[in-house]
């Protein structure tokens, strides 16, 4: 018989305000096997943990039940506590009387009653616990970074600087991400390229970093410390090892009318192209859809011209497979599609642009070489209207419920830059709220208003109507309480940002979770912000939530620190709650093998003692590879003879829990 101790936590008033903790301890004391029960203000504090350790020693406890917050919060903490007192860490169960009781029920009697049931359920379970020891598995000392924007680059650089191999997989032909398209950065107004491109080069030259550009991760298997990824290297029809990036081919290619993605379609590029001058790797790529040779078989001009002999029209997609200890997700974001916002005439007039398009229109390497000109007729705009929160903080299905966070600041930046360069241009900004928390952010915004005379109008725009080469903007000024009409030359929309489309499939591939907006979920919103709940998967940058560049870089480095901490270990303690086969009962039918998603089950011929003259017989029985088994339990249900069970979540234990609830 076990000697069980029950510890009821008040969690300050979080639990104690709705649950009568004394009554819970009192009721627990009456349960079979319980030799000690008490309550305390904060069980997770050092004093609380000491109380547990002392009680284990004093009452010779063999099992411990903690009634407190969710086991997802402090189970690991309390496992360490009981281990320090000499108990096996798996002789512990946590009854969740906070998230699943005190926080959701208001009635004290009802909540207390439920807490008593939850406590006795945990007691019933722990009386059937057995000591478990975790197996160990080795750690592959290499990290995979999915996404080569500033987040991915920063994480990769930090991990590589610590001495570990890193592979960056980027789906575009070059690394650099969104930041390459940005002109200047707030609040310092330094040029994005000047601070980003050196980092791109650092990454390319780092001996520990391998960049797979124009590549995608297509499959991930395995688990923390031992992931296996399959990477598809899309055919770029140019041999990366031979191309020198001279650009000769791009100047001669006859297929010239293709939308230039880098400039967001504001100008054209050739079918063979290098995304931009500082691309890394600086290697050309052929867009098969517009290449005349690929389409008709005739042309082949670039091949003739290329001095390095790098062009290979027959190149095929290639797959490589590698092992990784940790995976960093840095898949970034995109502005939302504005097709649904037709009131702003985005699809009707080329002079209505998104903020990212404006970045290109103001950039020296952009389609207008940095002079701000109207896309429709190339004239200088004299009146520009900015519209904030297009699709952000939106309750209807068209937009996003969240604040995209970066728009207030970049609009202030745009307004300021325009007023500085073209003092004759009027700038109006329609806003709902101006949100500028951040170092030197509010000062920056005030400078835009006070020093540069940007006209901020609190209110929304109802309609933008293209008329006679102009754009009629109709909005409301909520402070003056009047309608405003502005005849503008250009309208700039601060489109909401959303996670990259690949987030969903990557989350599924990694079995990491994403929220309803497709942002990756962190293991804990406050205490573990850069880890995914899936062990070994880490989050860097906007894939986790809207962020500006400094925040992204900070998070990327934090993420790298976590990865380094993982890769520094030689062995990882596994999860001991894995499948276990009762060989006496197993009849070797192979059903479990078929449902196991990890291939952890194999079969062996074993000799068993039997009654009768033969004394022994050889039977085929299942055997579980504990290092591979993840403990899902699919086999336990599939097993027809009841030979399969999961340690820590055994059939007997779950039956006991059900019984305790229904008692």
């Amino acid at each position, binding site marked *: 018989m076990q000697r069980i101790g029950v510890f009821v936590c008040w969690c300050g008033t979080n639990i104690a305000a709705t649950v009568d903790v004394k009554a819970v301890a009192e009721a627990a004391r009456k349960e079979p096997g319980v030799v000690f029960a008490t309550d305390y203000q904060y069980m997770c504090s050092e004093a609380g943990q000491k109380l547990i350790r002392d009680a284990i020693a004093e009452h010779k406890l063999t099992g411990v039940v903690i009634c407190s917050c969710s086991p997802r919060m402090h189970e690991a903490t309390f496992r360490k506590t009981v281990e320090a007192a000499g108990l096996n860490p798996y002789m512990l169960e946590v009854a*969740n009387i906070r998230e699943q009781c005190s*926080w*959701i029920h208001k009635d004290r009697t009802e909540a207390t009653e439920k807490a008593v049931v939850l406590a006795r359920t945990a007691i019933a379970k722990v009386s059937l616990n057995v000591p478990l020891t975790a197996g160990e598995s080795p750690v592959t000392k290499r990290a995979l970074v999915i996404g080569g924007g500033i987040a991915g680059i920063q994480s990769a650089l930090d991990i590589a600087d610590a001495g570990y191999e890193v592979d960056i997989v980027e789906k575009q032909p070059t690394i650099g991400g969104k930041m390459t398209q940005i002109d200047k950065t707030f609040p310092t107004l330094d040029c994005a390229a000047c601070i980003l491109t050196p980092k791109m080069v650092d990454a390319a030259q780092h001996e520990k970093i391998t960049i797979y550009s124009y590549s995608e991760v297509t499959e991930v298997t395995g688990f923390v410390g031992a992931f296996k990824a399959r990477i598809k290297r899309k055919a770029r029809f140019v041999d990366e090892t031979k191309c020198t990036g001279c650009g000769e081919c791009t100047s001669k290619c006859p297929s010239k009318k293709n939308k230039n993605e880098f400039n967001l379609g504001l100008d054209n590029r050739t079918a063979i192209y290098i995304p931009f001058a500082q691309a890394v790797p600086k290697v050309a790529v052929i867009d098969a859809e517009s290449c005349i040779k690929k389409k008709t078989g005739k042309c082949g001009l670039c091949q003739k011209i290329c001095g390095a002999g790098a062009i290979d029209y027959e190149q095929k997609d290639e797959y490589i497979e590698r092992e990784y200890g940790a995976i960093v997700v840095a898949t970034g974001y995109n502005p939302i599609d504005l097709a649904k916002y037709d009131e702003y005439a985005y699809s009707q007039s080329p002079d209505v642009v998104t903020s990212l398009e404006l970045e290109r229109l103001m950039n020296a390497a952009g389609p207008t070489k940095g002079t701000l000109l109207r896309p429709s007729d190339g004239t200088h705009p004299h009146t520009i209207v900015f519209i904030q929160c297009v699709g952000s903080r939106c309750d209807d299905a068209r937009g996003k419920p969240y604040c995209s966070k970066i728009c207030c600041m970049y609009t202030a930046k745009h307004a300021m830059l325009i007023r500085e360069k073209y003092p004759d241009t009027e700038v109006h900004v329609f806003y709902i709220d101006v949100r500028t928390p951040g170092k030197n952010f509010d000062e920056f915004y005030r400078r835009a208003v006070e020093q540069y005379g940007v006209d901020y109008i609190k209110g929304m725009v109802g309609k933008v109507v293209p008329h006679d080469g102009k754009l009629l903007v109709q909005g409301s000024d909520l402070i003056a309480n009047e309608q405003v009409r502005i005849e503008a030359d250009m309208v700039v929309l601060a489109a909401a940002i959303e996670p990259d489309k690949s987030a969903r499939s990557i989350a*599924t591939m990694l079995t990491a*979770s994403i929220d309803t907006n497709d942002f990756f979920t962190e293991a804990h919103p406050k205490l573990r912000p850069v880890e995914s709940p899936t062990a070994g998967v880490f989050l860097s940058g906007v894939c986790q939530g809207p962020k500006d560049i400094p925040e992204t870089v900070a998070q990327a480095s934090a993420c790298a620190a976590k990865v380094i901490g993982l890769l520094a270990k030689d062995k990882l303690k596994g999860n001991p709650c894995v499948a276990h086969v009762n060989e006496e009962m197993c009849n070797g039918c192979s059903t479990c093998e078929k449902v196991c998603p990890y291939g952890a089950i194999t079969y062996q011929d074993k000799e068993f003692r039997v009654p009768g003259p033969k004394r022994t017989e050889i039977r085929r029985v299942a055997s579980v590879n504990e290092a591979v088994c993840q403990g*899902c339990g699919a086999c336990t249900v599939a097993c027809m003879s009841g030979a399969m069970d999961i340690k820590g979540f055994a059939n007997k234990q779950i039956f006991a829990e*059900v019984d305790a609830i229904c*008692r």
Partner: protein
Amino acid sequence: MQIKIDENGNFKPTIVAFCCNWCSYAGADLAGTSRLSYPANVKIVRVPCSCRVNPLFILRAFQRGADGVILCGCHPGDCHYTTGNYYTRRRMTLLFNMLDYLGIERDRTRVEWVSAAEGAKMARVMNEFVARICELGENKRLEDLRCKKSLEE
């Protein structure tokens, strides 16, 4: 033996909820963190994956006097163990059909997919489920009186 009638004479059902550790249990925690309430009748049993739930667990709950059993897992395709909830879906369809055949009302059992981000869905599902069980009343069909007796003694 639980008293299933409260002081106002209303039926108080016993409800067992199996939640997979990775999505639904976390979803229930999120309902808690967001202070979204659902009836206290619901008691959650944490299992590694929805596919850990043996149909026998559900039968056992009914035998022991549960009035409703709900099973929550990750959305199809999102199972932490990739395929676990597909097994769950198939197994439970079979079991629920069989229960129906045995005269246990179909609505006493339910499978729901609740992700870690869906605290609100968790609360809504539980509220709806409890309301439905209250309508159905006490489950007498499978209750095994012998087990009850031996427990009481």
